[in-house]
């Protein structure tokens, strides 16, 4: 299939949008992921279902993908958008396409580092606007230059590779001997074990691994759909959390009467509209100009502009407030939004003349809280909510069900936006006591434990459906030919090899082997094993 100029332009625009800021703060959780990218590229190329399936297969390798503090292992934009475009154009099956995707992901991270470096320049432009007290200037610096850079940095290479590369991939594939195609397919079947292994190295504690095995067995012997296994996982999670008595006692979250009085007696000058506007700006633009020098610093200052305009009126005051919030800041943007709420409350007190709230107090509370909340936030949003919901989306998508990506986007967005709104408003309402209210009740730990149980059960089922590995070895015992796979292994445990491979990857990661090393190992074992006739089907 030839990709037209229009299609290539649309795909490169989609690749930019996938990395952009325009999706209500959930872009990183939705359109950035290959499952969604594949569906979009498929729609552009006229076959959304095929694109979705390819995207789901690619996403499986990146199931354990967690980016923290501006550092990320590989980049999903190239893997998702270019990977599916080339795969669909060259009519590659998922397995062969996967071998293209790994180098694309690594190439993509170069773009990410470039963007993080270049965006550092724009915060200095924002500094200049802040000195003049221009809230509009600061906002514009957060929104526009960084997005222009992203458009060029992702759009142009995507166009070039998709438009000129699809023909090259097709002719390359025509040259590859069938034996190698078979071997690549074997590698493609093994690669999801890397994504699942990475996720296990994050979620998998020994004491919870029985849930993983239950999920695996339910899927491989009863052929239950992953969604149904996930429902069993949900039940298991509810029971596990209850029986291990992790649930916080009722009333544990109530603030002390004193804290409640302080919160209620506080003079309120910020309106509901200001709060909503500030939260909205943070939700949409927190990473718009993400950069190494101050990470989300400019995003923070931008989000505070409605508050600053309400509280301060002279140019000196506005300028000082803008500069105060243009410093280095980084947290997990959703759970961490409590910091913003707390900051608004402190700014309000400061503007009302409370002497004890100095600029230093505000800064030290902000910088003290941002780290710990990122720790909780990354564990919760990137480590649990996202992979659990993605597992479901991927499983549905692989069955050809468009509900996979749709359901994923809806549930994920509701969860992320909900967390962000609640933490932000709680932070404002209670001040810094909110942090203890949210974290101290034990609710978060119970939630994480439950999500781990649900996640492990689901991922167990996903291992059974996604990872494939089988041997062709035959042993002659006297007169009888024994086929290792069907006569021996399958009679012990169906799916023994995929399960063993997945657990092996998990242990290797635990022994400090890097994911890239393991991916290379999988390629070598898969290619050499197939070449020697040890690995293969039937």
């Amino acid at each position, binding site marked *: 299939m030839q990709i037209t100029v229009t299609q290539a332009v649309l795909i490169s625009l989609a690749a930019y949008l996938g990395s952009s800021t325009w999706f209500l703060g959930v872009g990183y959780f939705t359109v950035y992921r290959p499952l969604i990218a594949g569906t979009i590229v498929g729609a552009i190329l006229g076959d959304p279902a095929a694109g979705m399936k390819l995207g789901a297969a690619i996403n499986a390798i990146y199931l354990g993908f967690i980016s923290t503090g501006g550092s990320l292992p590989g980049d999903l934009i190239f893997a998702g958008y270019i990977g599916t475009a080339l795969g669909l154009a060259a009519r590659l099956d998922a397995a062969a396409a996967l071998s293209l995707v790994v180098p694309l992901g690594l190439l993509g991270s170069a773009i990410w580092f470039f963007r993080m470096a270049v965006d550092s320049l724009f915060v200095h432009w924002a500094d200049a606007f802040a000195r003049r007290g221009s809230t509009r200037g600061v906002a514009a610096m957060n929104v526009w230059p960084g997005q222009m850079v992203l458009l060029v940095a992702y759009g142009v290479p995507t166009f070039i590779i998709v438009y000129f590369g699809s023909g090259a991939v097709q002719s390359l594939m025509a040259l590859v001997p069938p034996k190698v195609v078979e071997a690549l397919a074997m590698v493609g079947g093994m690669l999801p074990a890397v994504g699942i292994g990475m996720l296990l190295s994050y979620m998998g504690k020994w004491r919870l691994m029985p849930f993983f095995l239950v999920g695996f067995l339910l899927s491989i012997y009863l052929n239950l759909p992953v969604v149904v296994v996930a429902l069993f996982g949900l039940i298991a999670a509810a029971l596990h959390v209850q029986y291990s008595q992790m649930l916080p006692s009722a009333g544990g979250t109530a603030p002390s009467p004193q804290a409640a009085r302080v919160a209620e007696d506080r003079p309120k000058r910020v309106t509901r509209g200001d709060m909503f506007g500030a939260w909205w700006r943070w939700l949409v633009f927190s990473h718009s100009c993400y950069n190494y020098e101050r990470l989300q610093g400019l995003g923070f200052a931008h989000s505070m502009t409605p508050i600053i305009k309400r509280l301060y009126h002279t140019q000196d005051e506005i300028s000082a407030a803008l500069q105060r919030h243009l410093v280095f800041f*980084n947290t997990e943007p959703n759970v961490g939004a409590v910091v913003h709420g707390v900051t608004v409350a402190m700014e309000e007190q400061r503007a009302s003349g409370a002497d004890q709230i100095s600029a230093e107090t505000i800064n030290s509370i902000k910088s003290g809280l941002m780290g*710990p909340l990122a720790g909780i936030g990354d564990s919760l949003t990137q480590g649990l909510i996202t992979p659990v919901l993605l597992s479901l989306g991927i499983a549905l998508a692989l069955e050809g069900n468009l509900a996979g990506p749709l359901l994923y986007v809806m549930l994920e967005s509701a969860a992320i936006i909900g967390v962000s709104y609640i933490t932000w408003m709680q932070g404002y309402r209670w001040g810094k006591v909110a942090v203890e209210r949210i974290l101290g009740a034990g609710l978060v730990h119970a939630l994480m434990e439950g999500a781990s149980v649900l996640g492990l059960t689901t991922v167990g089922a996903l291992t059974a459906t996604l990872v494939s590995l089988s041997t062709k070895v035959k042993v002659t015992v006297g007169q009888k030919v024994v086929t290792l796979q069907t006569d021996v292994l399958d009679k012990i445990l169906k799916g023994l090899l995929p399960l063993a491979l997945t657990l092996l990857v998990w242990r290797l990661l635990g022994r400090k082997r890097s994911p890239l090393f393991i991916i290379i190992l999988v390629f070598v074992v898969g290619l050499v094993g197939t070449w020697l006739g040890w690995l293969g089907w039937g």
Partner: protein
Amino acid sequence: MAATAHVRVDDRLIHGQVVVKWLRYLDCQDILVVDDELRGDDFMQTVLRMAAPAAVRVRVASVAEAVGLLEQPALSERGILVLLRTPQMALALLDHGVAFDEVNLGGLAGGPGATRLFRSVSASEPQLAALIALRSRGVRVYIQMVPEEHALELADALPAHLAKSRPTASPDVDLVRTQANGG
């Protein structure tokens, strides 16, 4: 000092990179935050404790307390992660007789007058002096945000004129040492 202690300088202390990546990579069940200022801040100590996973024990100690804690041979069966907000604090630990071979420089915020070393690692003048002092006292300092990345030696990230010189006991360094001891 216990052989399994990992020293990390990171002004955000316990955050995503630490919780999601390093604790699992290093297989640590203990975090020791050494910080004289936070030692007196009950609220922040509570927050730090709540931020770590349930199975991880978090302690906040002053420099003086940390010396005693780190000398106990059986402090932890597994590794212990020592978190410091500034390189000056690492120098203070050395001065108090805590021995360590390596310091992982994980994150230092940029600001006015700070020199950018690598990505999100910057250092102010006193921080630079402390880093150089650590190096001249035989401590390997390397920049690495997360385990998946390659470690970058401090020498390769320092501005050229600082990377070559190896000050042993310049007045600047002594000044840093005294300040770190004091606060």
